């Protein structure tokens, strides 16, 4: 995972760079939580451009981080989701609470 904090906008960009399954989530969760508690951002952008695989473990991970972001009064968005990941996000209903934005190049 790579991260970038833009102080001016109070924006935290987290770019996930591995497949998201039960095996990888614990590490990703720890890193995300570290960055979120460090910066307390108003807005979190999750860049999924390099996530080629995600299963239900990712849904739990995302909903958990979404709750944290709400607790600190911020928002969360997913950008650049690949088709396979988008399908899981849409069918599970995650997109009803976390918005997916398309075609942005950020990091």
């Amino acid at each position, binding site marked *: 995972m790579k991260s970038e904090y833009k102080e001016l906008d109070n924006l935290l960009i987290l770019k996930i760079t591995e*497949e998201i*399954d*039960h*095996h990888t*989530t614990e590490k990703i*969760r720890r890193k995300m939580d570290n960055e979120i508690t460090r910066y307390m951002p108003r807005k979190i952008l999750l860049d999924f451009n390099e996530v080629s*695989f995600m*299963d*239900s*473990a990712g*849904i*739990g*991970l995302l*909903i*958990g981080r979404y709750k944290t972001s709400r607790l600190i009064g911020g928002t969360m968005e997913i950008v650049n989701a690949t*088709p*396979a990941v988008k*399908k*899981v996000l849409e*069918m*599970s209903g995650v997109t009803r609470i976390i918005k997916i934005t398309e075609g942005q190049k950020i990091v």
Partner: protein
Amino acid sequence: MRGLYDNEMKLEFLSKSSNEAFARITVAAFASQLDPTIEEISDIKTAVSEAVTNCIIHAYEDEEGIVKVVTRLINNVVEIEISDSGKGIENIELARKPLYTTKSNLERSGMGFTIMESFMDEVNINSVVGIGTKITMKKAIKKEEVQETISEEKNTKLIV
């Protein structure tokens, strides 16, 4: 002599989370003999990952056990059997329901079976408490009509 199936493979591995990626990639590579689309392959990968992960987290919990995966190709259908000798499922009806999980403390979403059912054509659950669980999933690989279009295009090119 020709067997009952066109092709078959079997995997057995320890219930370690590092084997989740191994299992889904191996099944996908085997199924690719049927020439699936990228979307069909990723559907299969996701469903396998769900069933294998369930064996590791729910069936064996903190113990180590064996997960078995059998994949068969029958005409254009991929049939995948994923089984464990773990604790079994008490209420299968309930387990299938979206958002139902017995491990919500671990940030599980309870969407595993829902994903398997939506990404595969058929999902059967056989389970006996104290004995184990076997999930059987089937997916037909659609033969595309794209081929016709390609040959038409070729003809056009030849004429030109």
